């Protein structure tokens, strides 16, 4: 068992941290988390600027095969995620880079790989994911949006929802029903890409509880898209979505973000007096911060194990689910802890009265983005129970 990084890895990791540290200095006021990427024009521009900076260095394509512009290793990608998490740096399109690119690498045609991977690597194109529907959330295969073939085109009708960043993205990848008469709901689904400017596509905002614009509803009214952008085979889209299970998702970005937040809380408690006494000296606060620090470190240790397994092409999917659940719950606990420590100031939105730029007022509301999206924590627990522990599925 060896957790040591090589000198080369240490140097590489430091480089990622340095660049993200520099980018942090250009961060717009009150920028934090994924909502900030999509909510304001300023945030979106910062995301694009960071993306260009990373693209210039070839960092968006870390761990990809070199023929599609890839460089570096899977571990480099892990270190890069750590650095971005620590500094809360955007610039890597969660959908295009983290979801679509590995899917294309696994199931896309040579033509599609050559068309899209270089554009993704160059940060020239941003994606959204159109999977969930009003009646297909955790039970994704229950989706009903249809794509019926008409010559070289599909005609799309239906509605998608919880579409993160659909109002800003250039293109989408969607899961749609191409065979409404298939025997089971998992069959007859197709993984399809298309331009969001296609006539017949309407995007409407769903505001988050803090008024942030992150999510959208997307409506299709006879939107016609080319058949040639199917990923994998028609009616076999479900299998294509499952490719993602084996792709790197160590959650180290979220974990490193929490590490930074704890450092910020320590600093705040060392500077802030309540009733004439530094918060740092309050035994309850000391205990609660330490408790969280223990949990963050435990998450980090298992996340490295996940990353190491994935770098070796071993699956580690169950441990990846474990880390996701744990890190999600942990971010909720951390948000509550921060808001508690701030006392009445924990409720203040960014303003002159808000300590730490109002971070905990936002985080208290936004942590659900981690525990609900990309497979709720309950679905992840099902996965651990069924595939990790071999417990029977109740039909």
């Amino acid at each position, binding site marked *: 068992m060896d957790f*040591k990084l090589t000198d080369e890895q240490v140097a590489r990791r430091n480089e990622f941290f340095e660049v993200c540290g520099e980018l942090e200095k250009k961060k717009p006021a009150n920028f934090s988390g994924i909502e900030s990427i999509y909510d304001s024009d300023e945030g979106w521009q910062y995301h694009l600027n960071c993306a260009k900076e990373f693209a210039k260095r070839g960092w968006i394509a870390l761990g990809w095969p070199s023929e599609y512009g890839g460089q570096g290793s899977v571990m480099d990608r892990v270190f890069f995620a750590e650095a971005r998490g620590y500094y809360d740096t955007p610039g890597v399109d969660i959908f295009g880079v983290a979801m679509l690119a590995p899917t294309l690498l696994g199931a896309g045609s040579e033509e599609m790989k050559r068309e899209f991977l270089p554009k993704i690597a160059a940060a020239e194109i941003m994606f959204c994911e159109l999977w969930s529907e009003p009646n297909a959330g955790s039970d994704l295969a229950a989706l009903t949006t249809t794509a019926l073939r008409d010559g070289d085109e599909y005609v799309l009708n239906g509605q998608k929802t919880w579409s993160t960043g659909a109002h800003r993205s250039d293109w989408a990848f969607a899961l749609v029903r191409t065979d409404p008469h298939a025997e089971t709901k998992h069959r007859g689904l197709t993984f399809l890409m298309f331009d969001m400017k296609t006539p017949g596509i309407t995007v409407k905002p769903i505001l988050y509880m803090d008024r942030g614009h992150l999510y959208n509803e997307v409506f299709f009214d006879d939107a016609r898209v080319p058949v040639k952008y199917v990923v994998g085979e028609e009616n076999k889209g479900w299998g294509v979505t499952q490719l993602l299970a084996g792709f790197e998702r160590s959650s180290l970005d979220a974990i490193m973000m929490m590490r930074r937040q704890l450092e910020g809380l320590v600093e705040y408690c060392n500077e802030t007096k309540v009733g004439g006494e530094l918060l740092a000296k309050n035994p309850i606060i000391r*205990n609660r*911060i330490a408790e969280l*620090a223990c949990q963050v470190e435990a998450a980090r*240790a298992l996340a*490295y*194990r996940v990353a190491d397994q994935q770098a070796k092409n071993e699956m580690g999917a169950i441990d990846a689910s474990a880390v996701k659940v744990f890190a999600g719950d942990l971010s909720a606990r951390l948000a509550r802890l921060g808001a508690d420590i701030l006392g009445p100031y924990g409720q203040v939105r960014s303003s002159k009265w808000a300590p730490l730029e109002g971070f905990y007022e936002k985080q208290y509301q936004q942590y659900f983005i981690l525990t609900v999206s990309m497979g709720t924590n309950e679905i992840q627990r099902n996965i651990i*129970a069924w595939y990790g522990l071999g*417990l029977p599925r109740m039909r």
Partner: protein
Amino acid sequence: MDIAFTEEQEMLRTMVSDFLVKECPKSIVRELEEDEEKGYSPQIWKAMADLGWLGLIIPEEYGGMGMTFQELTIILEQMGANILPGPYFSTVVKGAMPILDAGSEEQKREFLPRIASGELIFTMALLEADGTYDASGIATKAAPQGDSFVINGTKLFVEMAHVADYLICVARTKDGASPEDGLTLFIVDVRSPGIHCEVIPTMGMDKLCEVRFENVAVPKKDVLGELDKGWPIIEQVIEKGGVAKAAESIGGMQTCLDMTVTYAKERVQYDRPIGAFQALQHIMADMWIATQTSKYLVYMVAWMESEGIPCAKEAAIAKAYVNEAYKWLTDRTVQLHGGIGTSRDHDVGLYYRRAKTADIAFGATDFHRELVADRMGLLR
């Protein structure tokens, strides 16, 4: 980075596990728990000495195998998984390790080969009536008298002292400016006149003793480390001992998880295995998460200890985290077993009781959280 056991480490793991499954089934564990006199099996002790496990971390020049702390935690994980009552932990972690870290060449030559061969049982007498691992808890005094020090005081919760040959006693030799100042460690022959030992009845039935020192003379040559400057050695014992104890605990966690999942697949209610109910599946998923996070945290810190990377904060983190995880997981293990889980006859209780004793050993959760808070830089 290679976060997996090496082939040699896997072999050691399997060998220890196979040995314990065969030589120390739960019937023996229960027998040893009830055994008021010894509480360990001399046959198993001898066999472990022959296999080299007592000298695992002792360098070859002192008759050991010269392996690292990481290999020790591999053995301890399996001992925790199978439950091995006896003085292995006290001898190796509380005896051999401090002698290795702080002993003189002469002391190493005198004691380490005899520990490796299984001839000597060691333990450490640290805690007193206050029950704290803070230096302030140590009131036992040692006063110089000719070529000796004379020790007076009462030590509590001294593991396996009733069968030990030697114990390392922590005593106050000077009233210093701070509680940490003026502490000295002594290697004491348990047969010295003036030592009285009595087993305290405890939840873990793990033979924690009261040891009274009444004018016990210890030759000056048996001081371990420097006079009046023993605290850093004790800090090391608490740090490494805590990680070692956490290594035992992760073994116990894996066993409890396995037992629970097996039971949930077999036990049928409402015409289906209870493991098919999501209410229980999610608890077991959380048990998996707790086990995996605990394991890799301990592996990471054990690796740091082996590499000599300073890890006082990380060690405290590991102990505090695993304390809570093991207690919670054994609670859930009993709960998911239902009535049978609460019975004396079922193995679940063996682990449930040990999770609490493991929590207490080397400092419970709040003690270590305070160390973490301090080491994170929160001002005191």
